[in-house]
């Protein structure tokens, strides 16, 4: 008898259909990967977290997402992301909306701009650390999409011939922020 009761449907009060509510889209937890044999020259942007195991020369812009430069990763580019973790080699400026972590195996030559910067024991770093101007970076305009730019899920490489211009001079710095550029 008790078993039967167990399977009885629970009586519920009829309710009026609720109006459609716009729910915030859950942030993508997907992680795109640039494999160890992949080499990219150009700009990389998108809406997914990114793990870089290959080579990138250019610019990486994944605002609101996390970027990890794996142990085999070699990046010669500025990186804009929510969180940046470096286990490999980076030559360029890193702009983290939340934090930048350089792991023990990581080597960075460039400038770090983030509210929180963590250098693990054994990591190599040369450049400036700016934990003050990060708010300016966080509220900076999103990067304009340019022709020949790799973007979006699945699209990661710039087309042939879209080689990146030489690294921008100090003019790309936020105003009044001279220390963050060596």
């Amino acid at each position, binding site marked *: 008898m008790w078993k039967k009761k167990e399977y009885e449907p629970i009586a519920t009060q009829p309710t009026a259909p609720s109006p459609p509510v716009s729910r915030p889209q859950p942030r993508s937890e997907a992680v795109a990967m640039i494999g160890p044999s992949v080499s990219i020259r150009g700009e990389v942007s998108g809406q997914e977290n990114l793990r870089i195991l290959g080579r990138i020369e250019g610019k990486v812009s994944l605002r609101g997402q996390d970027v990890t430069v794996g142990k085999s990763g070699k990046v010669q580019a500025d990186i804009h992301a929510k969180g940046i973790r470096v286990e490999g080699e980076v030559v360029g400026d890193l702009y983290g909306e939340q934090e930048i972590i350089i792991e023990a195996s990581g080597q960075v030559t460039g400038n770090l701009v983030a509210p929180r910067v963590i*250098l693990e024991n054994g990591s190599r*770093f*040369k*450049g400036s650390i700016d934990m003050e101007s990060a708010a300016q970076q966080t509220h900076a305009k999103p990067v304009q999409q340019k022709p020949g730019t790799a973007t979006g899920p699945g699209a990661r490489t710039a087309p042939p011939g879209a080689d990146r211009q030489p690294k921008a001079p100090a003019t790309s710095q936020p105003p009044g922020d*001279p220390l963050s550029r060596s």
Partner: protein
Amino acid sequence: MKQTSRQRWNDAASQLSPGSAQHHTLALKYVLRRLMEKRRARVLDLGAAIGPNVSFVGRYAPKLYIADLYNTIRSRAGGLPKDHKQLERLLAKELPSAELGPFDLILAWDLMNYLSGEQMVSLGRHLARLCRQDSLVFALITNSKEMPGQPIRFRIVDTDTLSYTIDSSLERPSPLFKEPDLKRWLPDFKVETSFLLRNGFQEYVLLHP
């Protein structure tokens, strides 16, 4: 049996903090107190990037520059060049440019022990260009006859304590610089105060007047 400088260091450190490679510092608190008087202070660290130092100094100065000077110059030139012009070129390249300064505090650690008088003159001239009036330099000069083969990596434990890591198993004679040497080779700075530590180091606070 001859005691190495590493053993002497450990012995000296163990007197202060048994079982750990730490030693007391007096000058660090002194310079940090001065740093707190500055608004939006900037710090130039001539040493290697040490995570806890970045976190610690970041509490006092939101902007800091890590030069890792000794390692960088050594990797580029195989050592600190004796040739004056070559050293000048390297210092100009590896130190931050003047527009990035001025810095309120320069952490030189024990780098000066590894420089000759001429090299110290060059470094001092470059550092002076990165200073403002009242900028301070924190330097450790050894009073021991021998010292590790390359600069020690100092880690800030707290305002009163430094811990250290000696990377090199080799030793070399130390230059045994004295205060008059610093005055002679660093004419753009004056010794504001100094503290003699039990581990054989003399901590100097140099002022850019």
